[in-house]
């Protein structure tokens, strides 16, 4: 009961922020973003309080929820009409299409059901979950971050990666605060909400650009990835990183389309959360920044420069406290920063074929990803005209930069490369899936309703209808 209440609190906190930043008509998108924004906002505020010397408590969670509820009421009072979202026109579905939608809906329900099973019934059994993330959740529940607990400098616990960012543990510590019991093995439950939120956000984002078939198929494909179902509510950081990354990409695409600053603020918030989720998140936030700087909205304008600066400022404001707080923590587990040098990269060029080959094999591993990547490759090859669309090549660029970043990390690793790839590659490839899922949706055959050609057809139809009336 307390866990369900916490999930409601997270959703309300997310909605309290999303209501000011998203268009009113995009209800599903707003819900999805709220479900991912809520844990991020709650976790960051609990971290701020922890840095001030307060552990997470029911009172602090309830206060935040009440403030968010007031924000929702205040937003409902404002008399502002938003521009309607550019949904594609609805067309009559054939019986085959209706059956297909039902099939997708069943699979989505199955994926959510299995994840809920993990969240509420299974104990914490994933190695990473109990060794790293949920152990830290107990630490943060019991002690504030300032003064820094002895845990963070105890090298007999070096295996738990003492320098790993703390947003995911703090979200789980919030569950313990609500239940009042840190031994209840329920810290993983919060991530079920993000799994559902990511699905809703991807569905809404694809639906704004394609038909319901494409949106439902994309969502079902993403949520039924075997690894996604395994890790979604296992108590690790994979789901949180995937959800934040997926949402940040969607906000970037919407900023590219609408040029509305609210999308940029949201993209920056999600990128800031990513830096507090995993070390990979910092690289992904940097990729987001480089995409915004290079592509969006238009080159060489003062508006663009302001956008770039605003994004950078928000992410930096969120990330710098972590850098300050974590300064001086032991680097006894892995020290990528210490190994990052041009010389090391050059001397490990010979590793690139092995890394790419292993990565390619992981993409094709049915046990981990089923046919997810095969569907994307098939659609990209057979539907190449979609590459002309800006969102499509923006996402491909993000995907390629992301893959390049991971290749670089493997090149400089101080650990045994083969063992490290064996242990970590499946989860790293999982981080690519939100971008890939959006690409599946956008490569789906059919017209882009936002393309000039589609607009011309729609306006023709509109004129005909007006003449008939």
């Amino acid at each position, binding site marked *: 009961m307390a866990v369900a209440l916490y999930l409601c609190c997270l959703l309300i906190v997310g909605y309290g922020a999303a209501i000011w930043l998203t268009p009113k008509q995009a209800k599903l998108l707003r819900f999805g973003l709220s479900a991912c924004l809520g844990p991020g906002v709650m976790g960051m505020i609990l971290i701020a309080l922890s840095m001030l010397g307060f552990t997470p408590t029911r009172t602090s969670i309830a206060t935040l929820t009440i403030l968010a509820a007031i924000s929702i009421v205040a937003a409902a009072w404002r008399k502002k009409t938003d521009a309607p979202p550019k949904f594609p026109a609805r067309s009559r579905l054939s019986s085959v299409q209706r059956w297909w939608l039902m099939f997708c809906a069943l699979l989505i329900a199955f994926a959510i059901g299995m994840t809920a*099973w993990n969240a509420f019934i299974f104990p914490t059994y994933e190695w990473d979950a109990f*060794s790293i993330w949920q152990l830290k959740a107990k630490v943060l529940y019991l002690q504030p971050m300032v003064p820094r607990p002895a845990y963070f400098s105890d090298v*007999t616990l070096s295996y738990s990666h003492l320098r790993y960012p703390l947003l995911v543990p703090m979200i789980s510590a919030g569950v313990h605060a609500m239940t009042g019991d840190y031994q209840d093995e329920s810290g993983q439950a919060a991530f079920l909400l993000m799994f559902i939120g990511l699905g809703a956000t991807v569905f809404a984002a694809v639906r704004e650009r394609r038909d319901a078939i494409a949106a439902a*198929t994309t969502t079902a494909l993403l949520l039924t*990835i*075997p690894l996604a179902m395994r890790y979604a509510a296992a108590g690790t950081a994979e789901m949180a990183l995937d959800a934040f990354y997926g949402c940040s990409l969607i906000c970037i695409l919407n900023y590219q389309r609408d040029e509305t600053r609210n999308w940029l603020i949201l993209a920056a918030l999600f990128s800031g959360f990513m830096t507090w989720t995993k070390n990979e998140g910092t690289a992904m936030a940097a990729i987001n920044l480089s995409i915004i700087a290079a592509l969006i909205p238009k080159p060489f304008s003062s508006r663009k420069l302001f956008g770039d600066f605003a994004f950078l400022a928000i992410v930096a404001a969120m990330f710098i406290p972590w850098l300050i707080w974590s300064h001086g923590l032991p680097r006894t587990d892995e020290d990528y920063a210490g190994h990052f040098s041009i010389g090391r990269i050059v001397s490990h060029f010979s590793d690139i074929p092995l890394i790419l080959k292993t990565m390619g094999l992981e993409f094709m591993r*049915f046990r981990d990803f*089923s*046919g997810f990547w095969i569907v994307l490759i098939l659609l990209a090859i057979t539907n190449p005209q979609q590459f002309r669309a800006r969102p499509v090549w923006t996402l491909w660029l993000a995907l390629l930069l992301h893959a390049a970043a991971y290749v670089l990390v493997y090149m400089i690793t101080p650990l045994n490369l083969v063992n490290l790839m064996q242990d970590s590659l499946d989860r790293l490839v999982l981080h690519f899936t939100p971008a890939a899922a959006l690409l599946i949706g956008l490569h789906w055959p059919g017209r882009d309703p936002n393309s000039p050609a589609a607009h011309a057809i729609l306006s023709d139809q509109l004129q005909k209808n007006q003449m008939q009336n």
Partner: protein
Amino acid sequence: MNQLSPLAKLIRIVAFAATAISMSIAASYDIRMRTNPNLLTLLDLYGRINLSVIGNSDGHSIAIHFVNFNPPVHGGYAQNIYFLSSYVLWPQRDYVGPPGVVINDGYQLLDANAKMPDEAWLAQHDVVGQLFMTPKAKLGDFDSAWLPMNTTSAPSQ
């Protein structure tokens, strides 16, 4: 659908088929994973480790001795026991070696375990007893014996 060219229709059919196969396989993998005997054995093993550790600690710290653990064979297994018991016991501790020794993997763990601090140090750190774990022939299974502090008798099975 009617506005699509024959090629686009064909692409869509192929994409549908690939997607249906992919999602069905994904669902079956998930069901198989959850009913996999290895996972159930692992959960059972973790349950037994939890019981051994929590049952004996009674809200205090403990020390764990890995007896006859061969690093190349049992290193990963020993590290799982240590990592899991650290998690279930926290904020109490499961001491496996002297303070200040870096432990990232099974090799480092078993190396540290050979240099366990003396009983006086353990007693100063709220340790109420020592758990002696011995691997069985079947990999992943273990015997355990509990020796409360300040006793001279042999460990109880």
